[in-house]
């Protein structure tokens, strides 16, 4: 397996303060990597830097083995899918929300209709096709947000705590559905969460981020059963 995404010597500042310093992190093609850590650990900064939505002070991002700098921000972002904590839907119908990124790519109308149809069905929201986004429940809105990202057929999917604002039953259902979709599509995914159960359920590997630094990376059972140090153990509640 080769790394689809690799960050090296990454340092991100916010308000001139370092919030993230990572020597190396690689995401293999087809794997789901969960990045866990408490609030303020730098998880979202890592995700935004990986999406090239936050400019690091220094460091290199490689995509598909090539320096990501070789392509424009737009070209790079059109290879990824991004789902944030809040669905941030546009004030239009469910269909148009899922179609938004496809319109940005100037895809033919028939292809847009086809892809939107496929992903509305896969996310179980076909019946909501024409409903205004403003009239969706939290769980429905996040399903639309996921459909919108999957419809892009991204090489890399970046998920920033997508279920954290949902109630427990909705979260569990969505997590199961997402798990099935990721397994089916083999989409390379970085899944940010502070919920260890979510991470263990969905990821092949877990990276623990504390105070802006990677403290341990490994299979979930390995990380959870053998924390690398006291801080990781404390975070894991061991």
């Amino acid at each position, binding site marked *: 397996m080769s790394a689809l995404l690799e960050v090296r010597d990454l340092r991100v500042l916010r308000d001139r303060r370092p919030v993230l310093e990572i020597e190396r992190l690689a995401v293999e093609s087809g794997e789901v990597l969960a990045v866990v850590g408490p609030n303020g650990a730098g998880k979202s900064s890592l995700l935004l830097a990986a999406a090239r*939505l936050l400019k690091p002070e220094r460091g290199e991002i490689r995509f598909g083995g090539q320096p990501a700098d070789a392509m424009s*921000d737009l070209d790079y*972002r059109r290879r990824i899918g991004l789902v*944030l904590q*809040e669905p*941030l839907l546009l004030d*239009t119908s469910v269909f148009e929300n899922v179609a938004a*990124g496809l319109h*940005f*790519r100037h895809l033919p109308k028939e292809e847009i209709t086809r892809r939107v149809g496929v992903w509305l069905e896969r996310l179980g929201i076909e019946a909501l096709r024409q409903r205004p986004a403003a009239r969706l429940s939290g769980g429905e809105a996040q399903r639309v947000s996921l459909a919108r990202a999957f419809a892009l057929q991204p090489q890399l999917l970046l998920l920033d705590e997508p279920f954290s604002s949902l109630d427990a039953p909705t979260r569990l259902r969505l997590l199961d559905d997402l798990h099935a979709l990721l397994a089916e599509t083999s989409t390379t995914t970085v899944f940010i969460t502070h919920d260890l159960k979510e991470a263990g359920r969905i990821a092949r590997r877990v990276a623990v981020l504390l105070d802006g630094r990677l403290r341990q990376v490994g299979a979930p059972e390995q990380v959870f059963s053998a924390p690398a140090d006291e801080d990781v153990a404390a975070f894991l509640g061991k």
Partner: protein
Amino acid sequence: MSFANPDVWEITLLSLKVSGLATAISLLIGLPVGTGLALGRFPGRNFLLSLVNTGMALPPVVVGLAVAMALWRSGPLGDLHLIYTPTAIVIAQTIIAAPVVTGLTSAALQQLDPRLRLQLYGLGASRAQMVLALWRQARLPLLAALMAGFGSVISEVGASMMVGGNIRHQTRVLTTAIVLQTNMGEFGGAIALGILLLVITFLINFTLTWIQQRGARR
């Protein structure tokens, strides 16, 4: 002055043309500038925002004075021979409406969730696509900005009087005609023109409000 008088319709048409054009130009200026102020982060941004907000309350007579001085025969733009022409009124009204449209555009876009820009970029939007999507998202307050811009110029009298001169068949608009009728003691004519101005303003705002609320219901 009765509604049967052809002067009334000439004056009404000129009012609509002048204020409509001034509003359209204000939109062409205010939409991009307001967007830049809302989305940009650059030195002097707060100063510029304060300037625009101050501009939203510019007294029309002060604008009229400045434009009259600039367009006066001996003024810096005197060679253009624009003083006492409809173009002069359009210039003055644009200066009045542009800060209103700019300020309200900026406020409308700043009210959107700042993470929406990140999400749009994350969906693969170019900068232009991102801005268009934000305008679409803020279309209701942006329509309000348009209404406020038009309202600020269709009803102003000071600047139109000073730079237009209220010349019959040339630069007489509804508001300046009302002033003239009142000065002549022709209160009946002034009231009729006043009602006409109110009806026109109502109809235009009613149409825009209908479009706005139709959008809100969707």
